[in-house]
């Protein structure tokens, strides 16, 4: 089943940009587990609650991956804000991940 993790923006912030992402994983396979852990660590550190992440398990929902044009997992799609981007692999390359999410390295917001 696809897990949805939605974080509501903080009440005090009036103008916020929420980063919307979808991560495709293969069950509890090692790279998939690492990818989830790496992504959540980055999100907690850089985005606080300004993100929405949906995790799709391709073992259970292969048709979703095919429909979205995803051929390998783990695979992260940043859906908004524009421009969209993709990162393949276990997301251990933090700089690459930050660049794909449009976050300058070392920028703690």
């Amino acid at each position, binding site marked *: 089943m696809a897990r949805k993790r939605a974080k509501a923006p903080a009440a005090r912030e009036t103008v916020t940009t929420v980063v919307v992402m979808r991560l495709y994983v293969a069950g509890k396979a090692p790279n998939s587990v690492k990818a989830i852990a790496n992504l959540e660590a980055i999100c907690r550190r850089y985005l606080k609650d300004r993100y929405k992440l949906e995790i799709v398990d391709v073992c259970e929902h*292969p048709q979703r991956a095919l429909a979205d044009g995803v*051929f390998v*997992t*783990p695979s992260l799609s940043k859906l908004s804000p524009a421009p969209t981007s993709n990162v*393949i692999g276990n997301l251990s390359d933090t700089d690459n991940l930050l660049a794909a999410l449009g976050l300058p390295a070392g920028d703690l917001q």
Partner: protein
Amino acid sequence: MRPEPAALSPSDIQAEAAFKDWVRRLVRGAAELQAFEGGQIDAVMDPESGNAILLPEAQAALQGTSRLVLNALDALPGEVCVLDSTGAVIITNRAWRAFVVAHAGAGLGVREGANFLEACRDAGAREHVQAEAVATGLHQVLAGGLELFRCDYVCYSPGGRCAFSLNIVGIARDGPVHAVVTRENVSERKRVDASRISGRTKAGRIAAVMQAGTTNRLLATLPAKEYEQLLGGLEPVQLTYGEVLYEPGEPIRHVYFPSDCLISLLTVVDGHRALEVGLVGREGMVGSRLAMGSTNSSVRALVQGTGRAMRMKSTRFLREFQRSPTLQRALFRFTDALMIQVTQTAACNRFHVVEERLARWLLMTRDRMLSSEFHLTHEFLADMLGVRRVGVTSAASALRRQKLIRYARGVITILDQRALEAAACSCYQRVQVMQLEAATHTA
């Protein structure tokens, strides 16, 4: 799915190479290829079959995880088994297997490959009611109607009487629901609890007995001096739904004074069919036949509502009975009231419709349990009323439609007692009036 790739035979190596070539053709773009070559990919999508195909490393890791999970199950002290959607046992842990060996198939000790529901159906006469309740709970979990089913039950194995606590949890994935059954032997804990209740000292024991015993009205009618005389022989016990206290023809070893539990007296016909002929709660005792000079039970005494009771060894009870005229009078009064109930029930079972009888039975249960909510299955009620299950279901539905009761997940709740009294047959009121008259005349 691909076959296992880790083996080293030349054909496997060839297959491995062919698979990698296939993936390289499939992946698009440098990033995907780079991640694949760097070992950061778990699965690729096969556009032809529409399935996700795990890479050899991911497969091996997941198999390792599966083994680890099985080992972890074995390390648990409690008994665990996993059932598929048909109730077949597909995984058991070490503690479960040890139980199966120790109890020789009794007490729902089901082997891997056997079916748990069938084991419930084939349970012995003494465990029949409890096994039926477990089967009903399991059916509900597997049908997705219930997330967790929990019950206590007692089993009689060659090793003696054991008390268990059983949990059944549904695992709902996209496919059919599976179930995890966990069981804990609580005999020791119950024994410790009972000894804690009874206390180590005589004074503590008597205080505990007084506390638990005064809720039994038969004991409460005794003068303080008589009651104190009995205290030394009374022992608080916890009785569990479905537990059988006596079978017809078996010797009566203890008499029971219910505090907040409920006991059904059933007459067994043709060796297997049973019909309830009497209901005993806090107003009376079970085993009063001893006082009439018989040492064996004529009925099956079945615990129908879990709760506490005081019990006394038969020999001690007979001594006390012969010694105390007050106890004799109290017992005769109760036996008379029970006779009124039994004779009225006999006529009621013959002449009144199921719906009226069900309403009467629910009211009688409520009066004795002092609760408007009780755990019951339709099968159990069918046994109590001597009708087929469909008869109970339609009668219960009729009462539910009139908003007199609520029925959900094996729990019946009386919503409107007055209206239920109106829906019951005249036997309910009649027994109450006759018992009241009898009590007034003898008092």
